[in-house]
Every structure is written in structure tokens, then in C-alpha cells.
């Protein structure tokens, strides 16, 4: 059985030194054109990404059952309030099966940016969302510039720096 032990050890070292393995997973990457979508919003009307060409757009995929998503939203709301007049738009794309739950949570978190309902998960599949939450920054030309999976405290500072840079273009 010592050979199995040695095997496990060798395999783990191999995996550790194989960063390329992570790249095997498909992911949406910066430089690509942001896939278009049209979704129903909380206000009732349909919003589409194409309408906001010329503005810097942040697309944040979230769900009511995702802890880090709920933590992040007030910080994103602060960014929206600060930069919306400079040409910044934020879409909160929700993936809950019941849009009523999303509407209620957005109200509780006092979010002012548009909430879109992706109940049939088409936009999530287009953007190959592989973590919840996922934040995508799209520049004025409709090109994806940054993709951030997950949320940890402090990410909002990184987003702020990226947004300011993109607004200056």
C-alpha cells in the first residue's frame, strides 16, 4: 500500500504544479465582445445590454440564496450612486426561480440599480457564470474588460479603480 501513498503524493504535487489545469475549464474572458441579452426588470420594462453601448456597464449575477451576493450588493449600490451620472450603469441579474423573492430582497437591501430577472438562466449560460456572484465589467465599446468570480471584502475598491479607468476612455 506504500506505493498508493507515494502515488497520491506524486499526483498531488503534479496537480499543484499544473496551473494549466485550471485553464482547461471554459470561462468567459476579457477581450471578448459582451454577449447581448434582454431581460425583464423590477420596474416592469425590458432592458437590454445593447441600449447601454457607450456607457460603462457592470453586470453582477446574484441570487437570494447566496451569502456573498447579499453582502456585496450595498457596496455595488454605493458605486452606482457615485458614478451613474458619469455614464456608468449597473445591472443586477438575478437567477432565482421565483422573481418575487429577488424583488423582496432587493427592496430589503435598498438597492437602486436595475434588477433584471434571468429566471430561465439564458443570460447566465451565455456568460458561463461559474461562481456566484460573478461580476463582469463591459467598456463603452461593448467589450468585456474584467471578469471577477466570487466576492471578498475589498473587491469593491478594485471595481472602483477599474470603473474610473474605463470612464476616462
Amino acid at each position: 500500500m506504500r506505493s498508493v501513498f507515494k502515488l497520491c503524493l506524486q499526483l498531488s504535487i503534479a496537480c499543484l504544479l499544473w496551473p494549466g489545469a485550471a485553464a482547461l475549464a471554459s470561462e468567459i474572458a476579457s477581450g471578448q465582445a459582451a454577449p447581448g441579452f434582454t431581460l425583464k426588470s423590477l420596474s416592469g420594462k425590458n432592458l437590454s445590454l445593447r441600449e447601454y453601448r457607450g456607457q460603462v456597464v457592470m453586470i453582477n449575477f446574484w441570487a437570494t440564496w447566496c451569502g456573498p451576493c447579499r453582502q456585496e450588493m450595498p457596496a455595488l449600490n454605493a458605486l452606482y450612486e457615485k458614478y451613474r451620472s458619469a455614464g456608468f450603469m449597473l445591472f443586477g441579474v438575478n437567477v432565482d426561480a421565483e422573481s418575487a423573492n429577488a424583488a423582496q430582497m432587493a427592496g430589503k437591501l435598498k438597492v437602486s440599480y436595475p434588477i433584471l430577472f434571468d429566471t430561465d438562466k439564458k443570460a447566465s449560460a451565455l456568460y458561463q457564470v461559474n461562481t456566484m456572484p460573478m461580476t463582469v465589467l463591459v467598456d463603452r465599446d461593448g467589450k468585456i474588460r474584467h471578469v471577477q468570480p466570487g466576492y471578498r471584502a475589498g473587491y469593491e475598491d478594485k471595481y472602483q479603480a477599474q470603473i474610473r479607468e474605463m470612464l476616462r476612455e
Partner: protein
Amino acid sequence: MAAISAPSRRAVCPRWAGLAGLVVGLHGAVCAGAVLPEERADAMYHYYDGGGVRVTGPALLVRKNMADKLSVSGSYYADTVSSASIDVVTTASPFKEKRSEYGAGVDYLYSDSLMSLSLTKSSESDYVADTLSMDIAQDLFGGMTTVSMGYSRGKDTVRDNNDPTFSDYVNRYQYRLGVSQILTKTWRVNLDYEAITDEGFLNSPYRSARILGAAVPEQYPRTRDSQAVAFRTVKSLPPHSAVRLEYRYFWDTWAIAANTAEAAYNRYVSTAWLMELRYRYYSQNSASFYSDNFTQAQNFMARDKELSTFRSHALGGKLTYAFQSHPSFLVKSTLNFAYDRIRFQYDDFTDVRTGAPYAFDANVMQLFLSLWF
């Protein structure tokens, strides 16, 4: 009857180093992450009443997260035991006893690995138990699989309230391995294995065995190796319910084999009410050195009903009320009431008061408040 030699100490510890290497190594290439446990505070009152024993007391649990990386928890648990149980009533007089247990734990989140360390100290007038536990849980394959490993080390000091000169110890070693796998959007299965080794004074200084009706001190082996394998499955029945099924098989070096099976049904009755219904079946056969009444003296003799052949059925449920409005610093708050009724039926342990096989019913109740922040 041939003398039963002490069970040999089989090496129970598998290839941990290799497995740990595999787990830590895989983390470098994994696609999705893990999260810290939820922050919460729970306060509970628990109650047990059965077989002449009543145990009540409070329990508290608080968990707080820091910097998205660390989670600290503290717990307190107390039992106040008023006992006139069959063991006590037939060989001694009723007593009152208090046991308190303090626990502290720390969880550290590093990418997709959650590492936990915890310490528990339990003390009563004649028994002190200290336990140190280490666990690691690793998310793999985009979070579809979670592999976990754990180790616990316990050190107990056993005393005798009737004999101040008596003092002995127990060393406990526990090894855990678990795999959790998401099968579909609504279905998850778990497989768990745990090996436990005890070494030291493993019986109670107060209990006696019987040889042809006469009371004699119990003699236990100084070691016990046990293993358990459990399979669990949870299936969501959208949009409001879930079903859980569990089965565990246990066996040890005292020749005991036990089966545990449990089924539970959870359902959201309305926005505020959640109910659970559950049934648990348990059966075991007796230890090789157990007898209700020995015909002659042996190397090892036990008359603990815990080591006899018996079955139990537990039927119960839990009702949860989620408060619809609460202070803004709370994310969620619930009030819960749980009740189980257990029937114990012994095949080869007799009630010396009646001469018939012993059986009793027990009521278990829990009332607790949970706050999430």
C-alpha cells in the same frame, strides 16, 4: 466459557499523509470556492425524561465571522441529571448530578478549503473529558464534490464519587473521512466513515454485573476499536419540501454490530412555518462479554444495557417559526420546538424488579431561538 482475550490494537490510522497531499494538491487547480459557516447565535432549553432519568439544561452557541476568512465559535452546554434509572434504583439510591461542557472553535477559509480546529471540555463531579478536533473540508469539481477529513483526540479522567482513591483515564482517537456529492439540481448524497479507538477505563465504576444473581464488579477490556459507515441522501421536492434518508452500519472489536436508519420529511407550510417529521430505527446485538446474568466468572463481564441486544424506535418532529419582522441587524430569526418519543426494547437485559425483559419510553424536547446576523 473460554476466556476472551483483550482485543488487539489494530492499526486504525489509514494513509492520511498521502490523502492529505492529494486533497491539498487538488485545491490548486479547482474552479469554484467555498464559504464560511453562517454567523448565528442559538439559545436552547433541552429536556429528556425516560426510564426514571430526567436530564434538563440550557445550551448556547455563538458564531462570528471575521474578514471573510475566519469564523470563531463558542458553545456552552449543561445537563442537570436527576436519576432514578434502573441501574441506580436496583443497586444504589437516586442522585442528582450536573455536567457542563464548554467549547471553542476556529474555522479558516483558504480558497476552497475550510480548516477547522475545536476544543471541548466537559466536566462533572466524577468525569472530565477534553477533546481536540481538527477537520478539513475541500470543495472539488466546481463545488459538486466535497471531501472532508477529521481527527479528534480525547483525554478523559474517570473518578468515583464513592471512592476518592480511585482515578483512571481514557484516551480516545477518532478518524473521519467523508465525501459529499451533488448528483442533480435537487439531489445530494453523502458517504461517511469514522474509526474510533478507546483505550483506558471504559466502564462505569458504579455499575455491577451479576453472577448467578449476585452482584460483582464489571470487568471491561482496556481497549475498543470501532468503525462506522454511513450513507445519507437528501432530495428536494420543489418547491416546498425535502426528504432525507440515512443508514449507518457500525461494528467494533467487542463483537457489537448495529444498524441505524432514519427518514425525515421537511416542508415549508407557509412563508413563516417550517415543519419536519422524522423516524429513526436502531438495533444492536450484545457485546461478546455481555450477559444479563453470568453462570460463572469470566475475564470480562459487563451488564451495561448499552451493550445488550436491543432495538429503539424514535418518532418525532420539529416546528420552526420564522419571524417576519426583526431588528435590522438580524438577517433571519426563528423559534423552534422539537419533540421525539423513543421506545427502547431490550432482549437480554431484564428488569430485576419484574424479571421481564426491560423496556421504556422516553420523551425528548428542545425549545430554541436562533438568530442569524
